[in-house]
């Protein structure tokens, strides 16, 4: 019959399905035999962990939604009912709550891998940008989700963040009224936040699909940052990386379980155990830990609009990173200066995180300003210049040469003619 896929599968039932919708052939190609660089380290595990985490969040979220009430009169109590009366409700809620933190831990490490090994450089620019889109969607989803329990921090965090949009000239206040559905954060706001919180994860699933598709067109990067030359540089994804990823997943689940079963509220704010009170603001409004660096950037400048622009700008900047970094070398292993500076960036973001948790006064404001300045300087000034000035270390010939020949990642053995350096 015309158009049918010629399936190679032995089993007749599976063959019938596969010839009409080649999902099995596709899975075998993309996750079975897919040639994957053989020198991955555990940093490459984190994308898969993020996908597992997404599935966990969707599953637990769906079951929570069976008992949650998105009404200001009922929301807080419905969460308590889940914790106390619903069978295993406490477990599902704690997995969902700590799963959000785990999602950001995993994603931040995944992003770090991209920054360190130059995974955003050509031909992976679009892959990187899809990743930034996923990150933005994650942040929106997390923000919406945090409002739902309708605690004090839920309410006041929602008030602060929605009020940010009033910074825009002329249309700002109209945008805020549109977001609120009223004159303050209230029932219409909560109801629509619930709807959007249920929706966005499925949008994330769609973008993740594109993200992985984009990856599979160009192939994965690797710790050396040099291109795959042939089959000798790769291994089939199954069983090598399915098994390695399973090991990583066990460690991830152990960390996750440690939070869920032994410290389920460690990363949360106790103030959120108080039901929302529109007439009383908590002494310190603090977002969840994963937003703290951006919160610090927001509060680092006294001007409202500039603070908002810097905060959004700090993430939007990531979209153009492939063009800001001018170095032809991908992996930081061969970039002696960048290798140090990226850790300085990490330290800067961590310091911003601490500042975000503190009231914006005294030393915290000073540190916020210095680190915000450094953050933007890293991307807008240092990276473009560094690529031109830095003298990278010699790259190895190929992946398999560096893995099989004496010592990983080193230059050619002495006495051999140095080949021209590899361009990214």
């Amino acid at each position, binding site marked *: 019959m015309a158009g049918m896929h010629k399936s190679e599968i032995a089993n007749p039932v599976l063959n019938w399905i596969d010839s009409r919708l080649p999902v099995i052939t596709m899975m075998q190609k993309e996750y079975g035999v897919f040639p994957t660089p053989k020198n991955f380290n555990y940093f490459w595990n984190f994308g898969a962990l993020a996908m597992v985490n997404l599935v966990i969040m969707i*599953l*637990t979220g769906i*079951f929570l939604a*069976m*008992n949650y009430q998105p009404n200001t009169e009922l929301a807080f109590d419905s969460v308590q*009912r889940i914790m*106390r*009366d*619903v*069978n*295993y*409700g406490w*477990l*599902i809620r704690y997995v969902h709550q700590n799963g959000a933190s785990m999602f950001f831990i995993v994603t931040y490490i995944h992003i770090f891998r991209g920054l360190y090994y130059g995974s955003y450089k050509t031909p992976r620019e679009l892959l990187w940008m899809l990743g930034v889109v996923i990150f933005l969607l994650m942040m929106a989803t997390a923000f919406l989700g945090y409002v739902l329990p309708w605690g004090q921090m839920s309410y006041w965090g929602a008030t602060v963040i929605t009020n940010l949009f009033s910074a825009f000239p002329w249309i700002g206040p109209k945008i805020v009224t549109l977001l609120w559905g009223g004159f303050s954060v209230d029932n219409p706001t909560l109801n629509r936040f619930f709807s959007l919180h249920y929706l966005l994860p499925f949008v994330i699933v769609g973008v993740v699909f594109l993200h992985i598709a984009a990856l599979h067109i160009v192939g994965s990067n690797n710790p050396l940052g040099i291109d795959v030359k042939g089959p000798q540089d790769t291994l089939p994804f199954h069983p090598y990386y399915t098994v390695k990823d*399973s090991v990583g997943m066990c460690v991830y689940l152990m960390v996750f379980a440690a939070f869920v079963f032994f410290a389920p509220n460690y990363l949360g704010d106790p103030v959120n155990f108080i039901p929302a009170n529109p007439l009383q603001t908590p002494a310190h409004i603090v977002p969840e830990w994963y937003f703290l660096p951006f919160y610090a950037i927001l509060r680092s400048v006294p001007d409202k609009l500039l603070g908002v622009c810097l905060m959004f700008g700090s993430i939007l900047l990531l979209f153009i990173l492939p063009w800001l970094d001018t170095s032809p070398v991908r992996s930081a292993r061969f970039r002696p200066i960048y290798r140090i500076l990226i850790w300085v960036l990490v330290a800067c973001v961590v310091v911003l995180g601490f500042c975000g948790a503190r009231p914006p006064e005294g030393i915290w404001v000073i540190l916020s300003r210095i680190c915000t300045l450094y953050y933007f300087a890293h991307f807008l000034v240092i990276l473009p210049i560094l690529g031109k000035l830095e003298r990278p270390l010699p790259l190895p010939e190929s992946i398999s040469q560096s893995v099989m020949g004496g010592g990983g990642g080193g230059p050619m053995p002495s006495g051999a003619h140095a080949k021209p350096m590899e361009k990214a």
Partner: protein
Amino acid sequence: MAHSPANGHAHPGHSADVTKRDLLQLIAGAGAAIGAGAIAWPLIDSMNPAKDVLALSSIEVDLKPVVAGQGITVVWQGKPIFVRHRTPEETKDVRATKMGDLLDPQTDQARVKAGHDDWVVLIGICTHLGCVPLGNKPSDPRGDYGGWFCPCHGSAYDVSGRVRRGPAPTNLPVPPYAFESDTKIKIG
């Protein structure tokens, strides 16, 4: 890898060698299956009635206000429950019915509690397609058999809640209940 008889993994009739890899795959697969079950069970069980719903799963009914000849309706587990206080004549008459005349033969004695023969407690949902039959309120029609009458398709029940005319196939069910005293019952 050669299969050594000394290691105790003998598979009589198994022609290919069993390798360590097979064992590892079996253990990994079993572990994954157990893990999947351990994850699935709490999610599915969370859909079972929660503790606050279960707490409402029994109710007590005070029978003092219900005079002979009168019936009341209470709600138990979301369902209407008919509690009818029969007159002794009604009880005697309904016990005189021949089993052959019943669509769903059952003695009245099997449907009430001994020593409280004048009280009948039934789930008030017609066994045909689920309407709530009429007959409890004094203004309701009670059907040709003095019990209940279902307006949806015309089923008629006697004062024991047994179906006398269809299309209902079976008698009105009796919920689990017990007399805590002569004037109080606990349903569920």
